[in-house]
């Protein structure tokens, strides 16, 4: 346990907490009989999937749940203060002062019309009653403390001028403004890139040691838990199913749900020695026993190339002079070449702005390249062939809630591609919808229902069924499982693998999640600022990463094993750089060398010299 200074700060103590929400049929219980303590300087993580009640618990501590429609019983104490019986005024004095919170979405958690510095300063003014000028000095000090470069200059800038990671630093600065006794961090790194996540976790730890505050960490990510938490509370649908020290639970989980949750977490490095994908073991939540995982046969047939991409580039002008001369461009994709064989899965990994999604869109023909060519099953994609080739390439998107039209029934949504390409009669469409739904593990009866009736995982299955309607040979999955809970993620990944077995599909699997990628891909391409910096067989990339960026990426992935916590001091505070370049920018000529058969690495440029 890491307690640097145990000043007289109080700890948090929750007992017998019950929370219910009012809906039209009465009260629904969302948290039942929750209890745990956090000592000063200690970090406790509440772990669970969506609907487990973890965020609701956090909001109840701050008194931020809507009063009319919420019923809270039990006890939440900070030191010797009972928070549930505080007056609204006393609660207001407490928030941001003794208890502070950081939220999941750094992109929307800051007021877009107020400058960064003022948003930090107003919290200090509200609780300390000091002058504006003094608050400004203090705010700049806080910005420096959370490692925002040139803090004084950036005081007057606005949220849209900050990257996601920097915004989360600002949120942390706001939270720390009044040296709180308790910091609640609700999925603070879920929306961030993995290298930035490592930096932010690092920062929270560092500040906790300095301030000696208690930290309540809410997350679904076992890797993050292993990294930061001293103790953990596992919640499932409103109930605590297991509680204990992190080391203990990771080593010896007792409750079946915890076991299931832990086993669903892909572990980096667990796949060494195998070149084929491997399905996730699916655990029964009631028994904790693994279902028999099927052994996959190799699907790759290198004699048939489904996709051949050569020197693909796309640039978007972002700034022009009055005469239309481009002064800045986003070099979104730069000289990308790759191939995909029948039955093969090629993963494209990289962080925000790396061009991985743009590459996917170029391959499907949703975007037109500035240069280069895309060949699908040996036929070049041109304006006259795009329509017919699009049948062979289909796409699954990240957000299962936004990618289904709420006004189309499930059946109509699945068969829409058939209508667009005029491939089937109405009667045939109904049959196809039914058989596709069965194939993705759903009941054919749901074809008449609407998307809002289904969970995220079910919707993603519906999306998969839709992509299959045209019998494509290539499916591009753009972060297709990133928004799903761990257990659901495992199921959808397994479904994709099954489909590959049956139909010898080629997958382009675009993802930032290295652990999932390791599990399901045959080959991996690592993208950075629009370029492929390393590409090769999955085993080679993960066991022998050569390019400095690949190494950084793999190192930054949190390991779901508390005994292997990283040395925090090794993490550099570097930002992800931007692919926006001046108008006259000429991309440097890149050369690749072959490390081992099929494993190509870009010769690292001078920017990687350090």
């Amino acid at each position, binding site marked *: 346990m890491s307690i640097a200074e145990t000043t007289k700060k109080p700890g948090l103590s929750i007992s017998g907490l019950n929370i219910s929400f009012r809906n039209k049929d009465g009260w629904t219980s969302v948290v039942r009989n929750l209890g745990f303590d956090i000592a000063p300087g200690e970090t406790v993580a509440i772990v669970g999937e969506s609907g487990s009640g973890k965020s609701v618990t956090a909001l109840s501590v701050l008194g931020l749940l809507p009063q009319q429609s919420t019923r809270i019983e039990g006890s939440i104490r900070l030191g010797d203060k009972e928070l549930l019986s505080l007056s609204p005024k006393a609660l207001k004095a407490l928030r*941001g002062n003794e208890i502070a919170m950081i939220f999941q979405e750094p992109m*929307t958690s800051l*007021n877009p019309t107020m400058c960064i510095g003022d948003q930090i300063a107003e919290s200090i003014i509200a609780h300390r009653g000091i002058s504006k000028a003094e608050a400004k000095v203090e705010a700049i000090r806080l910005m420096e403390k959370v490692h925002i470069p040139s803090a004084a200059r950036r005081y007057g800038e606005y949220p849209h001028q900050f990257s996601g990671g920097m915004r989360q630093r600002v949120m942390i600065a706001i939270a720390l403004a009044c040296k709180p006794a308790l910091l609640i961090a609700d999925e603070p790194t879920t929306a961030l890139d993995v290298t930035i996540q490592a930096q932010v976790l690092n920062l929270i730890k560092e500040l906790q040691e300095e301030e000696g505050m208690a930290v309540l960490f809410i997350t679904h990510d076992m890797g993050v838990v292993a990294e930061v938490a001293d103790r953990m509370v596992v919640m499932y649908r409103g109930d605590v199913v297991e509680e204990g020290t992190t080391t203990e639970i990771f080593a010896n989980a007792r409750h079946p749900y915890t076991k299931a949750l832990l086993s669903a977490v892909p572990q980096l490095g667990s796949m060494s020695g195998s070149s084929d994908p491997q399905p996730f073991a699916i655990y029964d939540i009631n028994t904790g026993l693994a279902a028999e995982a099927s052994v996959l046969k190799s699907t790759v047939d290198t004699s048939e190339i489904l996709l051949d991409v050569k020197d693909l580039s796309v640039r978007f002008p972002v700034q022009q002079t009055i005469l239309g001369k481009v002064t800045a461009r986003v070099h979104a994709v730069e000289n990308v070449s790759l191939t995909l064989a029948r039955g093969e899965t090629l993963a494209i990994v990289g962080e925000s702005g790396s061009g991985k999604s743009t590459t996917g869109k170029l391959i499907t023909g949703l975007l037109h390249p500035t240069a280069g060519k895309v060949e699908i099953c040996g036929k070049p994609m041109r304006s006259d062939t795009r329509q017919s080739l699009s049948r062979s390439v289909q796409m699954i998107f990240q957000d299962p809630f936004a990618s289904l039209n709420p006004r189309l029934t499930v059946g109509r949504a699945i068969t829409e591609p058939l209508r667009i390409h005029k491939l089937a009669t109405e009667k045939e469409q109904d049959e196809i919808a039914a058989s596709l739904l069965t194939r993705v593990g759903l009941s054919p009866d749901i074809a008449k229902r609407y998307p809002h009736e289904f969970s995220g995982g079910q919707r993603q299955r519906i999306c998969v069924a839709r992509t299959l309607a045209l019998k494509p040979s290539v499916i591009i999955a753009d972060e297709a499982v990133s928004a799903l809970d761990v257990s659901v993620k495992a199921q959808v990944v397994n479904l994709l693998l099954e489909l590959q077995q049956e139909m010898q599909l080629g997958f382009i699997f675009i993802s930032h999640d290295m652990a999932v990628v390791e599990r399901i891909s045959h080959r991996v391409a690592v993208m950075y600022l629009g370029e492929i910096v390393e590409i090769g067989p999955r085993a080679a990339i993960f066991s022998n990463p050569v390019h400095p960026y690949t190494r950084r990426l793999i190192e930054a992935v949190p390991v779901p094993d508390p005994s292997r916590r990283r040395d925090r001091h090794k993490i550099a505070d570097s930002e992800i750089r931007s692919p926006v370049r001046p108008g006259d920018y000429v991309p440097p000529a890149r050369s690749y060398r072959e490390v081992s058969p099929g494993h190509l690495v870009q010769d690292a440029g001078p920017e990687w010299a350090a």
Partner: protein
Amino acid sequence: MFWFLRRGIASLVMLWVIVTLVFMSIHFVPGDPVELLLSQDGGSADPATVQMIREDLGLNRPIVEQYVEKLKGLASFDLGRSMVDDSSVSAEIARRLPRTLELIGLAALISLVIGIPAGIYAALHTGRTFDRVASYLAGFAQGIPVFVLGTLLILVFSQMLKLTSAGGFVAFSQAPGKHMGLLLMPSLSIGIGLAAIVFRITRASTLEVLPLDYVRTARAKGLGDRRIVLHHILRNALIPVITIFALQIGSLLGGTVLVEYVFNWPGLSGMLVSGVNARDYPTVTGVILVISALFIGLNFLVDVLYGLTDPRVRK
């Protein structure tokens, strides 16, 4: 500054396009100004007299020549002289424009003072009595035509309560009190409908901002309700209000004619309508040009306001 320059040039081009369109349309509309002028005395006009006056006004020259002449005049800020009574169009506009502007100005003020606070209050207390009553009233106020409301106001305040006269105009310099009294009723009849619109937009956009993450952040900071509403909600909620409000004000520039007629208020809209009736080309182009310039100016102002409220549009 670069942006400013580009906007300026674009505005000038827009004005030129408007002048051209107005010039073309009024010239192609059937009806000759001179014949209309002379036929007012009854009977058909004497062709020789018509010919003479046409020559006098330059109407017999080729249309392109007239157009070039017009542009030259405009370039030196000369709007020409009325064909009806040979008075200076600029002078007449200068006399009438302030009256229309003060009418719109007061109406705008009334609508903002009522609409914004009421909209925010209703949004913060949705479903309560105030919200329901105010929303109902707003729907009602939006539905009443302005001339009906104006007539009603006259009926109640001047006929029944005898508080003010039914209409008319007195210069501010002669009798400030009377001037304001006469200004109030027409402003109210425009302002009430406008307040209903402002109320609705403010309410809707506040409701949209309320559940956003940064409002939750503000609450998590432990800020007071006043500060949360003023600094975090209002400023973001105002952006759509500015847009709609500016469009409404813009359309009022040439659209106060009904109110001007009901209250006998000698403003710009009335001048435009009589100008069109008499095919008085210089008056029509002059008034439309001034209205367009104001509209463009207003849009410019809106952009500046946008920049002040929303830092993301500043570049």
